[in-house]
């Protein structure tokens, strides 16, 4: 991110690089899994799982998204997007071949090195599965991770995302789909190994099914869900230092300037999620102990 106009100093780049929309598949209600192509694989630094980028849809604006698949040697990468606001609505009107923009990668990703040999339970809700997708693929393909389980909660079957990926992952990890509204009979629910309720409702059943006890918890989803899951696992005896979560915030710069993504926790009021996050360890988010 160099800008040579002023003195050679390293300046933030607030101007995107042009990328091409390659194609997309529909993947869940109002959600699409997009493929984009960079001018070259070296156009941006190599992203770590859990890092994010700013996607520009010219005319509509810019918003943060995670890499579900990081750029390959053709510079092609993927991102899962749910149609939600102005930027994503405009993106859903784009066609293959359209030129969009990217800046990044930004932020701190999952603590990949600290995860080696850990017994990892991942709990994802809704779109929260996207920031974990790249990590899951890395753990199962290059690390051949042994103890890996994913509990994926969604409101109903139509809102489940990353359907092809979850099908593939089933062979490599213990996958538990949880639906608040299963919309079907008990028999077919059991047949498809779908649990009912929230991920937390299903947790006793999940832990009984696993023949190992998780020593690391990775969370991504609505903040209420992450907070409830973290507290639940601390009650179950897990250390706060073994719980990691990825936080979502509105962002306009991703380099700590625009101010939008601050954390309101008093001791972290100087934190910007774009720089200091989006991945946080649970104990770091808690107020410091009083002496």
């Amino acid at each position, binding site marked *: 991110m160099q800008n040579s106009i002023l*003195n050679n100093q390293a300046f933030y780049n607030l*101007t995107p690089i042009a990328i091409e929309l390659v194609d997309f598949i529909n993947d869940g209600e109002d959600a699409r899994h997009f493929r984009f192509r960079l001018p070259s694989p070296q156009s941006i630094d190599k992203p770590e799982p859990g890092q994010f980028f700013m996607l520009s849809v010219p005319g509509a604006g810019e918003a943060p998204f995670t890499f579900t698949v990081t750029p390959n040697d053709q510079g092609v990468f993927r991102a899962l997007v749910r149609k*939600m*606001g102005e930027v994503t609505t405009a993106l859903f009107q784009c066609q293959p071949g359209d030129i969009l923009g990217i800046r990044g990668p930004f932020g701190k990703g999952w603590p990949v090195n600290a995860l080696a040999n850990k017994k990892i339970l991942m709990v994802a809700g809704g779109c929260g599965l996207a920031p974990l997708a790249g990590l899951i693929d890395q753990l199962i393909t290059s690390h051949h991770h042994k103890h890996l389980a994913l509990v994926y909660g969604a409101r109903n079957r139509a809102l489940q995302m990353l359907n092809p990926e979850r099908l593939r992952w089933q062979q490599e990890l213990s996958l538990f789909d949880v639906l608040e509204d299963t919309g079907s009979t008990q028999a077919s629910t059991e047949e498809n190994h779908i649990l009912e309720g929230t991920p937390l409702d299903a947790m006793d059943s999940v832990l009984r099914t696993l023949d190992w006890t998780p020593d690391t918890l990775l969370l991504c989803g609505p*903040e209420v869900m992450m907070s409830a899951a973290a507290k639940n696992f601390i009650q179950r005896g897990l250390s706060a230092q073994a719980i990691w979560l990825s936080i979502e915030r509105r962002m*306009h710069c991703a380099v700590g*300037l625009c101010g*939008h993504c601050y954390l309101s926790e008093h*001791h972290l009021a*100087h934190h910007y999620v774009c720089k200091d996050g989006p991945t946080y360890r649970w104990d770091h988010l808690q107020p410091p102990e009083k002496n």
Partner: protein
Amino acid sequence: MKTQSYYLDHPNTLRNHLAKSYQIEPPEADSAKSTPPLISPKGQLFAEHENLFTFDGECFRETLPKPAPFVLFGVQSCDLTAIHYQDQFFANDPYYQARRQQALLIGIDCLSPCQQGFCPSVDAGPGVKNETADMILHQLSATSWLLLVCNKKGLNALEGLLLNPANESEFTDRDNRIASCVEQFNDDSYLQQGITAINQNQVPEELWQQLGIQCLSCSGCTNLCPTCSCYGTWERQDSNGDIRRQRFWDSCLYESFQREASQHNPTEEAGERVKRFWTHKFGDNFAQEFGRYGCVGCGRCEQTCPGVVGVHSVMKRIASDAKLDT
């Protein structure tokens, strides 16, 4: 460089000299006053609106400002301290730096307190600190001024203007006059108590909520605050079809500031937003990062706030309501 000092008959002598090579802000003569203007010079460096880039359908092109050399003339210590603070915050922002590198800063010592100011309490005045300006004006009498030159940039700008060097004793006299100005400020011990309470997280949540109710989210304080730097972005289409992204001053006190596309809003409550605003101004975490508090004691928030939740009002209420650890 050792500070050099000269006698000057009137600030306009310096202004006229600098006008040969620089654009002067503010453009009106006699702007060297010992009271900060309602609007700080913040916008000269961090523009209220500015283009970030254009997109022609294929390429994104950065649009850096290219201002001619300019002078911020007669800037008070509070605003210079704010610029010094922003220099750190925007150190890697190419748009800010493109303007900043063209700017020459002429400070002016305040010799009497202004109505809402409390710069001595936050180490931001009333005398201008050398590291925050290129030159400093200091009034000696109706017809005589002292001009301090703080650095090489200031010295170079002075080239061609013949001035008599000042006596060494003027430094001490200046310090004394500034010290006597400090003594004339009102007692504001509630400020220190408020700062302590904010940092100990001892402000009752109900008080933040009450202050939040009084905040009209009008952005008067954040616009006038010389250190406020939050911005939003939007895109505009030119008549030729090109897209321009602009950034514009935003306010963390707006209800929508953190609201996401999903409508999830981490700071939906006004009290939380007000709390974060004051923590940003007086939090020790920020002070550690920037070497000082974010507040420079100009008092403009008090002056402008229609809800009576400017700095003096807020800190007085915090000081009286907080349960301080002693």
